[in-house]
Structures are given as C-alpha cells and as structure tokens.
C-alpha cells in the first residue's frame, strides 16, 4: 500500500477556506439569481412585445373596419326609422274612415217621397266612431211612416258594413204645408235623423279575473 504524505497541508487548508468564503458564495448566488431574474424579465419583455405587435395588428384591422361599421350602424338606424315611420303611416292610412261608401248608402235609402235637406257627418276623435245627422222632409199620405221607412232603410244599409249602428229620430214633426206630388196635395213631415256607428268593432271588455279555488280551500 502506497503511503501519501501531505506536505502542503496548510496551503491546501487555506485554499479550501478561500473556496468556502461565504461572501464569495453569496455573491455567486446573487449573480445566479440576477441572471435568472434577467432572463425572466427578458422572456416577459419578449411576450409583451409580441402582444403589442398583435394589438397593433388588431388596431389596424379595426381602423379599416370602423368606418364601414359606423356607416352600417347609421344605415341600420335610418332603415329602422324608415320601417317604423312607414308602419305608423300605414296604420294611419288603414285606419282612415271612408265617406264615399256612406254617401252611396244614404243615396240608396232615399225613396221618391223623401227629400234630404242637409247632411252633416263627423268622424269623432280617438276611435269613438262616426256621427251623421240627416235633415229632410217626407211627403206621403202617412209622412211619418215614410220617414220611418227611411230610418229603417238607413239602419239596414249601414248595419251591413259598420258596427254598433244606431239610427234615431231627433225630431219628427208634421208640417202644416202640403206638398204637390203628381198633382195630389200630400201631407208632409220634417225629420232629423241622428246616426252613430263605428268603423271597426268596439273592443270587448276584458273578462273579470276568476278566483282560482285552491285545493285546501275546497275542503
């Protein structure tokens, strides 16, 4: 067995102590940590740069699209405006009351022994209906019944097309003067007929809520 003699014992010990110098080790650790932190920072910076470049790409894309979007939004708003306005105007047009059919119906009701002297018609606001006032004279052996025939005729004709029709005499009075109808002196009556009706059906009242019977109440 070979014998090893350490003749430099003190020098080797000093060397080892130098190597184990805590300050040196601390500085090395510090440098290592610093390097790791630097690398971590560099990695983060790289990621941030990448994200920022993506952001600028997206911003460029948005800058290209934005005017088109603004124009599309404006167009949508305009179109919606046109659609709603047209719808409201169409509703207004559809809800109009037409007088020509009423005039036609009145003309169909007038018999030769009846004369109209005035017609006053009015559309009431808020869909409350229409009123017509007819004044005239009837000449017949029974002038009142001639006027009544006119009233009934008006009711029949108007009820065919309108709702809630009411045809009533406001006045019906005999006249003292006689009319000459075909050389025959005929008694006369003056009348005023008041008509009310609706163009559309009146809204039905909503039924009263019925009470729901619970099981425990029935027992």
């Amino acid at each position: 067995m070979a014998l090893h003699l350490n003749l430099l014992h003190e020098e080797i010990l000093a060397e080892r102590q130098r190597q184990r110098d805590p300050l040196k080790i601390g500085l090395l650790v510090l440098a290592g940590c610093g390097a790791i932190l630097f690398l971590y920072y560099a990695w983060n910076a790289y990621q941030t740069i990448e994200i920022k470049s993506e952001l600028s790409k997206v911003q460029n894309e948005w800058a290209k699209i934005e005017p088109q979007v603004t124009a599309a939004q404006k167009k949508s708003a305009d179109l919606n405006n046109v659609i709603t306005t047209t719808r409201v105007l169409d509703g207004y047009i559809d809800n109009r009351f037409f007088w020509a059919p009423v005039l036609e119906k009145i003309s169909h009701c007038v018999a030769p022994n009846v004369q109209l002297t005035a017609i006053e018609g009015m559309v009431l606001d808020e869909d409350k209906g229409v009123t017509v006032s007819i004044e005239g004279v009837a000449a017949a052996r029974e002038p009142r019944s001639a006027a009544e025939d006119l009233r009934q005729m008006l009711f029949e004709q108007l009820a065919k097309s309108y709702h809630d029709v009411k045809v009533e005499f406001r006045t019906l009075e005999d006249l003292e003067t006689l009319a000459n109808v075909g050389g025959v002196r005929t008694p006369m009556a003056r009348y005023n007929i008041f008509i009310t009706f609706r163009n559309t059906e009146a809204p039905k009242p909503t039924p009263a809520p019925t009470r729901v019977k619970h099981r425990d109440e029935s027992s």
Partner: protein
Amino acid sequence: MNLPKLTPDQIKKLSLSVMGFIFLLYVYFNFFLGPLSKSRKEAQVAIADRQHKIASSKGEMQKATNLERQAKDAMTRFAALKTLSPEGAPIAWFPPRVKSFFTDQHIDKAVARLESNTTFKEAELGGWTKYNWVIELPQVDYTSLGDAVAALENTEPLLTITKISVHPVVEEPQFQQVAIAATTVIQKR
C-alpha cells in the same frame, strides 16, 4: 455539515448583501417587471376589446345588409309616400292641387283653406305634420260629389276627411253646397 465560522466582518458584509438583494428584488418587481406585466395586461384587454368589437361589427354589418333586403318594400313605400308631399309650403301647393283634382272630377269651383297645423304625438312621425284644411264646393250635384269623394279618398292616402257637410243651394235645389274638413299628413321640408 460543518459550517465555516464567520468573522464579524463577513457577517456584516453578508447582511449588507442580503439587504442589497432584497432592495434589488423590490426594484426589480416594482420598477421593471410590474410595469411590464401591467402594460401586457392592458394590451391583452385592448386586444380582447378590439376583437370583440370586430366580431360584433361583422354581425352589425350583416344585420344592416339583411335589414336593407327586408326594408326594400318599406323603402319603396316610404319613397312613394314622400312623393305625395312636394317641395315648398303646403299652403302654396295644396289648394291648387285640390282645385285641379275637383276640376278633373267635373266640379269647377273648389276652394281649399288652411285651418291649422299640428305635430304628431308619435315620435316616429316627428318628420311629418298634420294640416287641417276646409275644402268648399259651392255648387255640386250629389252623384258627382260621391264620385269625387271616392276618388279623393283613393288617390290621396294621407288625406282623411274628418267632417262633411252637405246643404242644398237655395236658388238651385238640384245642387248642393258642400264643406269638407280634411286632414293631410305632410312631410316637413
């Protein structure tokens, strides 16, 4: 493990190094890494926002295209309704129009007078105004009146007759004297 014994000088240096290290970490996180990650987060939020805007804008543009297709009928109808309101003040063009309309209906005398004008309560009709007119026909026979009223109601969709009054002409009982109250909806110009 035998830890080397530290001299007071070494301990002092070590504690100074540790404090320096802590200070370095503070500076690193607060002044370097902190702002960096903050700006990265802001950029990510901005990207998400822009991408959301881009995605929704594509839908918006598609919606506008679809709406345009759907609104074709409404636009045509709206344009047709607009043409019923010529340029200029209604009092300047409506009475002559009424006069020529009744002339075409073989009713020579027709006078239209403006009574009042009102705005609509409906917000959708903010660009339109209601004009109330009185149309006087001093001499007309009943049949011509019926035909004329029918034609007027059919050719003027934005005109509503609210009141009609028929009385005989005293000297010529075969003719009637008629007053018509009408409301027209006219676009504001």
